[in-house]
């Protein structure tokens, strides 16, 4: 029953999407405010029905309704409730439904806030409606989550044990909130092209969406990376896998877009470029969806790949690039001339940022797609580490100058003077790292130096704005957004350097009572016991960590067997003191009662994700300031004023 209700809800959402795009695109053309209002109402309706469809599928999972094919294939009665719920999007069909739900959430936000005025927001809704139509058709025609299974099986096939993790609850929704959010910026850009408006109004309207999307994407990527770190069992946190690249490319372009939007809104520079970048950011999201859903890339991803799905998304991608670009070519001559600024100015800084980031995204794209052109080779981590990280290093050198240089006419001497402490701090950090860390590594030292340069540069900028270091606390909250975002990158850089360059490892067979030394600790294997989990049985090994003969802590890594899914997983134990992780994982059990134990000490590992969280916090602060300003403006304006429309 719920399956039919969900199906019906999707069909109604499709019908309402048609109304949403018709009203949104036709209304402004005819200057008909009733049509625009209809578009807004329809957008809210699409959200409600998408949520209903999503709720119906969730209900089917929670109640283990195995007459629904997707549930039978991905769920099991013995699975804990949280994984029944997060399992909804742990497969192709459900995750496309989540994609749709988040798209309609952004549409509902546009309809509610009407940023940019009624006309512009209606057109943005029109574009959002077209995207919704495409993806609703995609879901209904190629990946129906409500497909029935008859006869109904008695028990489901279960969910891959590695997906039975809280990571699945957070990572995909955040990631989608991020890259589906680029649709809102895209929609506003196309709306501006349709209106042929060459002012910065659309940028002002779209920036909060870009910021929301960027923040969510930052957290989503970080959550995924952390999840991989603690589940994969060997301490790796980034693999340059095509599917990871699919989420990284939109992030890089969104970062460039945030900067370019700032320039367009504040000083009127780079109007055309910001339009193009908005289109590009969403295109990269679609490319990502295509890479993941079509299975075109040689990859071991277990997603069922159906050529029809790939072709469908490719078609959506083609239309969403070709139509706006045509529109752009048509409208471009009407757009205003270039801006006026001096060589040493924040505009130049933003140009360099955009250049390096865009090329970095293209480099990732080339690396990801190259194996398609040349099937005999594979492009792995060494390529990306060389190419992309060099770009990152170039960018990191110039980043601290950006916020210090003024718009239009900056003063390099003053900026250098402000950054003198940051440069000194970076130099001290490099010398200190040489002294304490071995082996020496040029890459590692560069990353540490640049990381400290970014962090100290952000603090110097705050001190400059506050007047002195001590008065930083008096700055308005919004002033911290840029510093947090840039400083967060520096924190991540240090974490990446520590974990990849200076990790130490131990691989040893330990019998009960035996111990081995690693990174100042002794690991002693105390014993093994069998434990029963909700839907698995596990060998739990207790290992004591000793320092100077005293037990600091005891860890319990596990080897779990899931009978339903017929899989064995390892559950690593991680003990962190904030500066380094002790990472312990189990290998095979030996016949003599010993265990193969692998342990790593990963210096600075927590910084990798801490940095991302700090950067995202910067994004949230920026967003909070915008929301407060908008609320203030709304409260200040006379009630019902339509004057804000243009």
């Amino acid at each position, binding site marked *: 029953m719920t399956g039919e209700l969900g199906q019906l809800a999707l069909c109604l959402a499709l019908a309402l999407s048609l109304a949403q795009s018709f009203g949104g695109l036709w209304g402004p053309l005819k200057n008909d405010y009733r049509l625009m209002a209809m578009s807004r109402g329809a957008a809210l309706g699409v959200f409600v029905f998408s949520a209903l469809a999503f709720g119906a599928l969730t209900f089917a999972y929670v109640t283990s309704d195995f007459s629904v094919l997707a549930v039978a294939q991905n769920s099991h009665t013995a699975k804990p409730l949280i994984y029944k719920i997060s399992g909804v999007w742990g497969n192709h069909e459900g995750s496309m439904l989540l994609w749709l739900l988040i798209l309609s959430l952004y549409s509902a936000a546009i309809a509610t806030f009407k940023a940019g005025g009624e006309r512009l927001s209606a057109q943005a809704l029109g574009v959002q409606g077209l995207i919704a139509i495409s993806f609703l058709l995609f879901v209904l025609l190629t990946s129906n989550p409500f497909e029935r299974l008859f006869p109904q099986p008695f028990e489901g096939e279960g969910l891959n044990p590695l997906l039975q993790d809280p990571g699945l609850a957070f990572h995909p929704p955040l990631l989608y909130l991020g890259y589906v959010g680029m649709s809102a910026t895209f929609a506003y850009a196309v709306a501006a092209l349709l209106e042929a408006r060459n002012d910065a109004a659309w940028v002002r309207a779209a920036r909060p969406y870009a910021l929301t999307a960027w923040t969510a994407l930052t957290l989503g990527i970080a959550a995924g990376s952390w999840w991989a770190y603690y589940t994969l069992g060997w301490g790796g946190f980034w693999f340059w896998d095509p599917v990871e690249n699919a989420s990284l490319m939109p992030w890089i372009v969104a970062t460039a877009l945030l900067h370019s939007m700032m320039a367009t809104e504040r000083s009127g520079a780079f109007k055309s470029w910001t339009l193009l970048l908005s289109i590009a950011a969403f295109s990269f999201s679609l490319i990502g969806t295509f890479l993941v859903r079509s299975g075109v890339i040689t990859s*071991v991803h277990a997603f069922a790949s159906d050529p029809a799905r790939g072709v469908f998304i490719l078609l959506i991608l083609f239309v969403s690039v070709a139509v706006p670009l045509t529109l752009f070519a048509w409208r471009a001559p009407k757009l205003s001339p270039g801006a006026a600024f001096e060589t040493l100015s924040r505009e130049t800084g933003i140009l360099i940022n955009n250049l390096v980031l865009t090329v970095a995204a293209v480099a990732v794209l080339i690396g990801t797609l190259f194996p398609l052109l040349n099937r005999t080779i594979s492009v*792995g981590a060494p390529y990306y580490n060389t190419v992309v990280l060099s770009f990152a290093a170039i960018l990191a050198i110039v980043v601290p100058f950006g916020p210090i240089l003024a718009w239009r006419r900056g003063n390099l001497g003053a900026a250098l003077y402000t950054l003198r402490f940051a440069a000194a701090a970076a130099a001290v950090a490099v010398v200190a790292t040489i002294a304490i860390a071995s082996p020496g590594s040029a890459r590692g030292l560069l990353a540490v130096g640049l990381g400290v340069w970014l962090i100290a540069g952000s603090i110097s900028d705050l001190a400059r704005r506050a007047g002195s270091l001590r008065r930083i606390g008096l700055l308005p909250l919004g002033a911290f957004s840029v510093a947090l975002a840039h400083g967060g990158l520096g924190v991540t850089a240090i974490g990446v350097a520590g974990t990849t360059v200076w990790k130490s490892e131990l691989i040893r067979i330990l019998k009960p009572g035996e111990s081995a030394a690693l990174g100042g600790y002794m690991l002693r294997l105390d014993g093994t016991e069998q434990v029963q989990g909700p839907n698995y049985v596990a060998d739990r090994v207790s290992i004591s960590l000793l320092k100077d003969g005293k037990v600091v802590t005891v860890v319990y890594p596990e080897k779990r067997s899931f009978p339903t899914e017929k899989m064995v997983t390892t559950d690593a134990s991680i003990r962190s003191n904030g500066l380094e992780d002790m990472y312990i994982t189990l290998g095979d059990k030996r016949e003599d009662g010993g265990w193969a134990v692998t342990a790593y000490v990963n210096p600075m590992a927590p910084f990798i994700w801490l940095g991302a969280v700090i950067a995202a916090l910067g994004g949230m602060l920026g967003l909070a300031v915008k929301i407060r300003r908008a609320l203030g403006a709304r409260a200040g304006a006379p009630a019902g004023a339509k004057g804000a429309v243009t």
Partner: protein
Amino acid sequence: MKRAALVLAAALACSPVLAAYDESFPDPVQEERARTLQRELRCPLCQGQSVDESNAKIAQDLRILVRERIAGGQSDEQIKAFLVERYGDFILMSPPVRGDTAFLWFGPALILLLGAGVVATIVRRANRRSASEPQTIDPDLGEPTL
């Protein structure tokens, strides 16, 4: 979802890294050489992972092969050449720098250079405009926030 897939893929055959233990060399220099070489080879089964990280049977076989050849006195280059002959360039994590991969390796740098040229032109024009217009700095242009 993406990560889920990755995790899934890696888990199927390629979970933790322990096989290395059984094969290790007593000599730390030789051991380090073997580890470095293993990291440069892609596991044919778990393509996202190197032979060093993968726990697939084939990866273990390759580790043993690498170690036998190191023990037999072959150079890194000889071992790689043998594996490339057997598995193709695919076995290398890092694609070779050759004519047909030139765009892969040098394309991004080339695009960066071209882009730098465009940026320089934009900046020069903006400069000229800035010089010809009286410099009016908008008082609204305050400090940046995201």
